[in-house]
């Protein structure tokens, strides 16, 4: 599903942030992405989200070389990828329901088509009672569940999570990762970036460790 071959990444004329990345991620797998701050986790996730192109090497996703795709094809591919951020990135002027429904709305679907799906998903993540609430009124855990719901409402094949537990307490962190694990059981490929050792120890998923711009696969 995802294959990196000697991939390097630099911003402008700066030094390489990621160097000679070569690894493969199978469909339906769950990987932790770890590494110290500044090691390039977010840059790697941005490559996987297709918001950056490799400076060199080959990144293949869904059987296609990303560098050779035009913008429309990249956009189509991006719709198969969901993303969850540490800082949630919900739109404060939209309700929880509207935030979660946003990926379907941008596809041009009418609300009558997705209303029941979004409601069901919000109830599944425990936000059935908070559908009309605006994000500033949600707790950290509720925001993150809304962000996860938004990431999965379009049934993505790959779900990327950038420090999704960074703004919640350790107990809720474990619950959220269990939620990701449930999504993984449904067939979604998950790459979850975290530097919380307690989480890595609590779950027996393979780890990709990034150090000095280079990746090492464990497990």
């Amino acid at each position, binding site marked *: 599903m995802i294959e990196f071959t000697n991939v390097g990444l630099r911003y402008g004329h700066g030094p390489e942030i990621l160097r000679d990345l070569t690894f493969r991620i199978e469909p339906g797998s769950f990987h932790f992405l770890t590494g110290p701050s500044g090691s390039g986790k977010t840059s790697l996730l941005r490559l996987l989200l297709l918001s950056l192109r490799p400076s060199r090497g080959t990144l293949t996703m869904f059987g296609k070389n990303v560098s050779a795709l035009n913008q429309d094809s990249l956009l189509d591919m991006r719709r198969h990828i969901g*993303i969850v951020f540490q800082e949630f*990135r919900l*739109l404060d002027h939209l309700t929880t329901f509207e935030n979660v429904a946003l990926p379907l709305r*941008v596809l041009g679907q009418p*609300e009558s088509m997705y209303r029941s799906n979004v*409601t069901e998903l919000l109830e599944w993540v*425990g936000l*059935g009672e908070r559908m*009309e609430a605006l994000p500033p009124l949600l707790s950290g855990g509720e925001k993150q569940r809304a962000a996860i719901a938004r990431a999965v409402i379009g049934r993505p094949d790959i779900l990327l999570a950038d420090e999704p537990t960074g703004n919640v307490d350790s107990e809720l962190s474990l619950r959220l990762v269990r939620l990701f694990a449930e999504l993984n059981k449904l067939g979604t490929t998950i790459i979850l970036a975290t530097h919380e050792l307690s989480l890595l120890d609590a779950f027996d998923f393979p780890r990709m460790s990034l150090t000095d711009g280079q990746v090492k696969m464990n497990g």
Partner: protein
Amino acid sequence: MAEAVADIAPPAEARAKPAPKRNTAAIVPERSVAGRTLVLLIAIMTFLSGVTLGGVVLVQKSAIAWSSDVGRQVTIQIRPIEGEVMDSNIRTAISLAEATPGVTAAHAISLEDSEKLLEPWLGSGLDLAQLEIPRLIVVELGDPKDVDLSMLERDLKTIKGATLETHAAWRQQLNTMAATLVFSGVLVLLLIVLATVLAVVFATRGTMASNREIVDVLHFIGASNSFIAGEFQGRFLSLGFRGGIIGGLGAVLFFFLVAGAAGSIMPDQASAQLGFLFGRFSLGLDGIVGIAAVIPVLAALTAITSRLTVRRFLSQTSGL
């Protein structure tokens, strides 16, 4: 699955609830666009465009009306010459004029009427019988194109002191002046449009910068640049219409107020003379329709400009 959900979900009885019917909020919040400032700016631009357009319409209508009225009349002037009998010459000139093809009527301006015409310059109570002044004969034309004025001019050479005044030089000057004013008005309109485009470009860029988070989120969830541009365009179109309607109504109101003020400030006689010379200070239906047409034009211009600016902004910042 059930286990994970139970971990984070509230009790089941609190969750069973049908999805309510709802009004979906706009993706680009209204308050995030520099709304009031832009509405005011577009209102001012529409007002200026409306006043300019109205002015052009008034000038053109007056010029056409004046030129048409003047074009349907020519004047024969007979200067007093010693040894010539004025009344006889006047009768001969009227006969010659009436015999010319295309002329519908000809009559001499009486001494009393001549007196009234000269009154503003020479004062009242003047006895023109004591003065030897030229006499005028007004010749009414049917269709000015069918009249053989050169024939009339030739015939009038038989009368000593008679000349034909066709007002051609006046009409030419008037048409040139009207065309210059219309051209200047169109130039001003173009400059207003250009200024509006520039203002909308700056407002859009400012709005995009302040809504960067929304744009990024839309990109992350798979929105195309076209979709994002459409969302911003819709917001700017709405602002453009609001500003346009305010400015357009202001311009129409301006013309009504000025027409009303002109009628009440000037005495009836002066107002009538001005009306005769320059036309009535009234827009008419075509002028109002013209100003109304400015509203959708400026709103559409605002929307298109914002869309192009957003597309350019997105292509510069999307990173792909």
